[in-house]
C-alpha cells in the first residue's frame, strides 16, 4: 500500500530543474513562461527547483558542445533516481542549425539518456507541459501502474 502511495506521489509531484546547455534563451523563456499565472504548472504539482539534488525531471534546452557536456553529465548524475530527462527545442533534440558546427557535440541524447523530445524553435509552453506529462506516462509504464 505504501508503495502505491509513493507511486502516486511520484506522478503528482514532478519537480523540474532547468539547465540551459547553450541555448539562445528562446526556449528558456518559454520554460519560465510555464511558471507564470497564465500556465501555472504548480497546479499539477510541478515546481521549478534550482537544485539537481531535489529534482525529478531535468529540462535541457540548447545544443551540447564540447565545453558544457561535462556539466550536463554532472548535473544528471547529481539527481537521485528515479529521474527523467526532457530535451526541449530543435537544438536540444538534435543540435538544430548548429549541428554541423565544429565545436558542437549534437543533441542532448549524445551525452545522457533522453526520455522525451519536445521539438519547436522555440518550443511552446503548452508543448513543454505536454512533454512533462508524456514523461510521467513513461514513468507510469516503468512503475507498472495502470490508468
Amino acid at each position: 500500500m505504501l508503495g502505491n502511495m509513493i507511486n502516486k506521489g511520484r506522478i503528482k509531484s514532478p519537480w523540474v530543474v532547468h539547465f540551459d546547455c547553450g541555448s539562445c534563451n528562446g526556449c528558456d523563456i518559454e520554460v519560465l513562461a510555464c511558471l507564470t499565472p497564465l500556465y501555472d504548472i504548480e497546479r499539477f504539482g510541478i515546481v521549478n527547483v534550482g537544485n539537481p539534488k531535489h529534482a525529478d525531471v531535468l529540462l535541457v534546452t540548447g545544443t551540447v558542445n564540447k565545453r558544457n557536456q561535462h556539466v550536463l553529465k554532472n548535473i544528471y548524475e547529481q539527481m537521485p533516481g528515479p529521474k527523467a530527462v526532457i530535451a526541449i527545442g530543435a537544438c536540444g533534440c538534435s543540435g538544430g542549425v548548429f549541428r554541423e558546427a565544429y565545436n558542437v557535440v549534437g543533441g542532448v541524447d549524445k551525452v545522457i539518456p533522453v526520455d522525451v523530445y519536445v521539438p519547436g524553435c522555440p518550443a511552446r509552453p503548452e508543448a513543454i507541459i505536454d512533454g512533462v506529462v508524456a514523461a510521467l506516462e513513461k514513468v507510469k509504464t516503468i512503475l507498472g501502474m495502470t490508468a
Partner: protein
Amino acid sequence: MISTIILAILALVLAPLAGALITGVDRRITAWLQSRYGPPILQPMYDVLKLLGKEPRVVNTWQALCAYVYVVGAALSVVLLFTGADLLLLFFVLTVGAVFLVMGALASPSPYSQIGGQRELLQMLAYEPLLILVFAAIATVTGSFKVSAVFELSRPLLYDIPLMYIVLGYALTIKLRKSPFDISASQHAHQELVRGVYTEYSGPFLAMIEIAHWYEVVLVLGLCGLFWSTGVVGMIVLVAVTYLAEIIVDNVTARLTWHFMLKSAIGTGVALTVVNMIWLYAQ
C-alpha cells in the same frame, strides 16, 4: 498518566497530518493571491511521499544523523506542548533540533549550504530571544512555566499580554521561513542560495525535514492558541486569523537582509515586552 500517553500519541500522529493540510491550504491561498489556480490541498503529502521513495544519497553520515535528530526534536516539542509539559523544556528540545539542522547543512563544503546554515543560525539568534521573552511573560501571568497552568486561567492570556502576541507573531514569521524573513531558505518555490540550508539534503532526508516542518507549523500555531485558552472556538479563530495574516504578509513583502531582521526582531521584541510588562504591573 494514560491520558498523557494518549495525548502524546495523538500529537505524534495527528500533528504532521494537520501540518501537511495547513501547508497545502497555505500554498493554495498563496496561489490565489498571485492569481493562479494552485496545487491540490494534499500536494505537500504527495511531495513527501515522492521524496521518501527517492534513492537515498547523503554527503556524509553526519548529515543523515542530523536529519533524524531534527525530526525527532520537532516531534518531541509538539508532544511536550500537547501533554502540557514545561515551556522551557519545550524550548530547549526545539533548539536542539534546529541546531542539528544547521549542523547537517554545515557538514558539507557546498557554499550554498554553508551560507544557508550560517543564515539559519542568524535566524535562530533573532527568534529565540523572542520566544524566551514570550514564555517568560506567560510565566509572569500564570506563575508557572507549565503549559497546563495556562489552561487553569479564568480569562485568555491575550487580555493580559496582547503585545507579547505580536512578539510571538514576529518569531513565528522567522521560524516558519516566511517573507520578509525567508533568508536561509524558503518554504515556497522561491529560490535563494539555491535552497539555502536545505540544499544538500535530498530524497528521504529532505522528506524528513519537510515532516519536521509540519510539526513545527503545528507547534507554532499551538503556541499562538495558548493565548486563547478558555474556549476552543476562540482558539481556532485566533489561530486561523493569525495564519491568514502570516500568508498575506508573506505575499506582500520582499525578502530583507539579515541585518534588518536581527535589529528589528530584537528591537521591537524587547520594546514591546517592556511596555507590556509595565502595563501588567500597573494593573
